[in-house]
């Protein structure tokens, strides 16, 4: 497994993305000692024993990614389905306009005019339903006469995925103004969501229109063996494949400089959200604002005045490429990362729900359980695997710090495996998965993921010092190990990478680790850089209110898991 990288050459003086691609491939040649490019700088194909490649795939986030405007009739129904389709395709949703978004038509029109998206997705209505609502939305577009972000001369693509009956009307209203592409309805009937066709159309148009504006793209297109995909769309594909192949629930998170992407598959349903202004450099000031100072400060054991911390955070947004040199700066950065991750998951939970507005046949049991439509699919107790990606997690000075950040931010319940993406290879494997799923999976499990281990966290009322669970671990050493977890504690048992252990957990009365309150659970877990972590800190995690006590508490947790470099 090897990696080569090179700065983009999309801008002057090169104006050709393929120059950068060739530079990166050259670095790969140096690292591997294998010749990949011919004299003309072209990839050698087909591969032989000594040289060349079998397959070349590419993803792109050129020009800040795919920026879309989404429109639908009812916010919680067709607009939400359309939003899911756009996000699933890897887009950044700039705004969602719908009939009931509390804005007046002139405000909606002004907004559409301001945005300059790469593409519009227009949905609305079930097939055969009322035409006038979606026609009104089309009229908003017509009145706004939106222009595309890139290139003055080309017509803005609009994907229409609404009521089939309204197609002629929408065509008539928008004729000559935008480039209309009709696909199947994202919500043909209320009970069914049909996102595939809209997602595929978005991918296709992204290639044809948006990417076509990037210099050198035409050349790149001829080089790839599979269509070029927006980078987050490709990560989503991979997360879907992983969940399907293993039959597990997966939560993937990619925390970048400007945004945080969250991907999940629960009960076979894939969802992606982008928290557009939660990131670790460009938008880290927003993390502080959104989370509130006290929420960030609760994770920090450094004793600095609030104003000093605020100024340092703001200095990071204006010098985004700097890295923490002092330990105190690292502590602040990792505190911010916890909050960015926590808020991103919160947004994801609110979005990844069962379909809203659906009439459900309810049994008496359902009525007692108070289940309704629009419930979140994200169930932390059901979750099997969390994959973390992005600089602050993948390049944390210690893997233990990455594990602790994810446990603190996501507060998993029951038994959950943890891993980080070592070199941000997930997007490429997502595209490769389209061509050669088996190969993609093999590389993913063997080389892409860095397993950190597993976390065991009981749900239930935590009292400090009270025994929450007892566990027997078979396979983590010569003899089985016995663990007693008390309220407020964090414990670590080493289980190296590649090793597997059997966990037999006996939760105390009222505590649940996945089999029900007080019920014993047996589970196989795999090891990693951290091993098995037992988390008895409660959900939500309970902090001491006094700074000095909290500082001791945080240091104790960090030491217990090995997240503090001693000396």
């Amino acid at each position, binding site marked *: 497994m090897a990696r080569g990288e090179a700065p983009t050459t999309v801008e002057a003086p090169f104006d050709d993305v393929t120059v950068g691609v060739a530079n990166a491939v050259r670095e790969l040649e140096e690292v591997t000692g294998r010749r990949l490019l011919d004299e003309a700088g072209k990839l050698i194909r087909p591969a032989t024993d000594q040289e060349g490649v079998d397959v070349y795939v590419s993803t792109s986030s050129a020009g800040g990614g795919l920026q879309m405007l989404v429109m639908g009739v009812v916010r919680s129904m067709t607009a939400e389905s359309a939003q899911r389709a756009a996000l699933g395709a890897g887009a950044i949703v700039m705004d969602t306009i719908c009939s009931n978004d509390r804005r007046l038509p002139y405000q909606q029109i002004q907004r559409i005019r301001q945005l300059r998206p790469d593409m519009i997705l227009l949905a609305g209505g079930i097939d055969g339903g009322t035409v*006038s609502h979606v026609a009104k939305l089309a009229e908003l577009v017509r009145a706004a006469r939106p222009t595309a972000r890139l290139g*003055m001369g080309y017509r803005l693509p609009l994907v229409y995925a609404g009521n089939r009956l309204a197609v002629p009307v929408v065509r008539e209203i928008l004729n000559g103004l935008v480039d209309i592409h009709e696909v199947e309805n994202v919500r043909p009937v209320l009970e069914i969501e049909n996102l595939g066709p809209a997602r595929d159309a978005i991918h296709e148009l992204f290639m044809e229109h948006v990417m076509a504006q990037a210099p050198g793209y035409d050349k790149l297109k001829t080089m790839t063996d599979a269509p070029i995909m927006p980078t987050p769309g490709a990560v989503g594909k991979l997360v879907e494949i992983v969940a399907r192949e293993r039959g597990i629930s997966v939560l993937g998170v990619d925390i970048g400089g400007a945004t945080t992407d969250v991907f999940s598959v629960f009960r076979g349903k894939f969802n992606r959200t982008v928290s557009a202004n939660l990131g670790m450099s460009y*938008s880290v000031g927003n993390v502080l604002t959104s989370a509130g100072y006290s929420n960030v400060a609760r994770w920090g054991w450094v004793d600095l005045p609030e104003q000093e911390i605020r100024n*340092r955070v703001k200095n990071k947004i204006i*010098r985004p490429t*700097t*890295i923490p040199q002092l330990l105190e700066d690292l502590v602040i950065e990792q505190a911010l990362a916890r909050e960015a991750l926590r808020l991103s998951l919160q947004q994801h939970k609110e979005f990844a729900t069962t379909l809203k507005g659906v009439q459900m046949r309810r049994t008496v049991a359902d009525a007692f359980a108070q289940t309704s439509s629009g419930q979140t699919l994200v169930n932390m107790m059901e979750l099997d695997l969390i994959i973390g990606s992005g600089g602050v997690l993948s390049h944390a000075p210690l893997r233990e710090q990455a594990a602790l950040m994810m446990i603190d931010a996501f507060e998993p319940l029951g038994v959950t495996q943890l891993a980080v993406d070592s070199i941000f290879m997930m997007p490429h494997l997502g595209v490769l998965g389209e061509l050669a799923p088996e190969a993609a999976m093999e590389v993913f499990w063997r080389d892409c993921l860095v397993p950190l281990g597993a976390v065991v966290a009981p749900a239930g009322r935590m009292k400090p010092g009270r025994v929450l669970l007892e566990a027997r671990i078979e396979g983590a050493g010569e003899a089985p190990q016995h663990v007693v977890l008390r309220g407020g504690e964090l414990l670590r048992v080493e289980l190296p990478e590649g090793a597997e252990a059997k966990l037999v957990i006996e939760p105390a009365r009222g505590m649940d680790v996945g089999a029900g309150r007080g019920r014993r659970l047996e589970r196989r877990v795999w090891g990693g850089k951290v091993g098995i972590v037992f988390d008895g800190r409660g959900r939500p995690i309970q902090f001491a209110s006094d700074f000095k006590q909290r500082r001791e508490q945080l240091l104790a947790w960090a030491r217990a898991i090995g997240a503090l470099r001693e000396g």
Partner: protein
Amino acid sequence: MAHAYTPGLLVRERAVIRKRRMLPIRGQVLVRTGDRVRAQQIVARAELPGNVQLVNIAHHLGIEPADVPAKLKVQVGERIQRGQPLAENVGLFGLFRSVVSSPCDGEVEAVSAVTGQLILREPNIPLELTAYLSGEVVDVIEDEGVELAAVGTIVQGILGVGGEKFGRLAVVVKSPTEELRPEDVPADAKGLILVGGQRASLSAYRVAAERGAVGVVVGSFDDADLSQILGYDLGIAITGGEDIPTTLILTEGFGRLAMAERTFALLKKLEGREASINGATQIRAGVIRPEIIVSSDEAVGELRQETITETRVGSLVRIIREPHFGTLARIKALPSEPVVIESGATVRVMVVELPDGREHILPRANVELIEL
């Protein structure tokens, strides 16, 4: 690789400055290639399409959308005035007459028999684009805008708020380490761009604004004070659209950071000169920094400029993160092997000499290059 790529902020006394001034939509360019223009001169003009009003005729008259066209008293394309009847429904025997009047002046753009709506467009909004930079028109992009060039001084800041302004530079403190206090602001600051040193307090900025200053340029500012000016907390560094009368430009950052000596000395030298400033900042791909520009009358001609993008042993750098934030230092070594730093991270580093002669090791990412 014995160098690191670390572009710094531009602080140049004699530079070729180029600006593209583009209309948001097609319009009319008023100057020609070769013309000399002044900063406040209008170089292009356009008409933004007016606001749109949707009038739901079917709803107001209580009729079916399909019946709307028959009830209209205006036609598509027709100019209309506020209060003018747009549609009328007359009941049996001419009784129960209901009328829908126009909410605005403008034009009828479209009518829909599906939604029963009438789309009215208000009159176009004229938009005038100034040159911003005093200099020469070097290119005209037909109907869209112009490219200007001038030889002059350019100082880039790290962050600004507020848009394009034009005024006279006034340095009101004695040294780059001095704070700009309310009492330093001249009684009549109308049209002035005040240059302070280390930082300005919130009260000093407010006094400057009250007394008519169009700009304040200082080394640093407190984050809490900036929130007071904006009325919100700055979450991401994308600015320029703030509706404030006094543009604020920081040359160093947040906290208490002295203005770089070279920047201060250059601005001091330009005291009393007319300057164009812009607080617009965009720290994302396609970075935009706030700027202070003073054009000269020198012809652009063949002046060539090279941008230094490499740091080498002997180069002067500014440290841009704690510890020693803001300090100038000289590179002594660029070891190729990564080193473990205090935070525990393993990174590529440089060894620098601090002004007091001590050696300091820091990540390569934490410096910016200073051009000489």
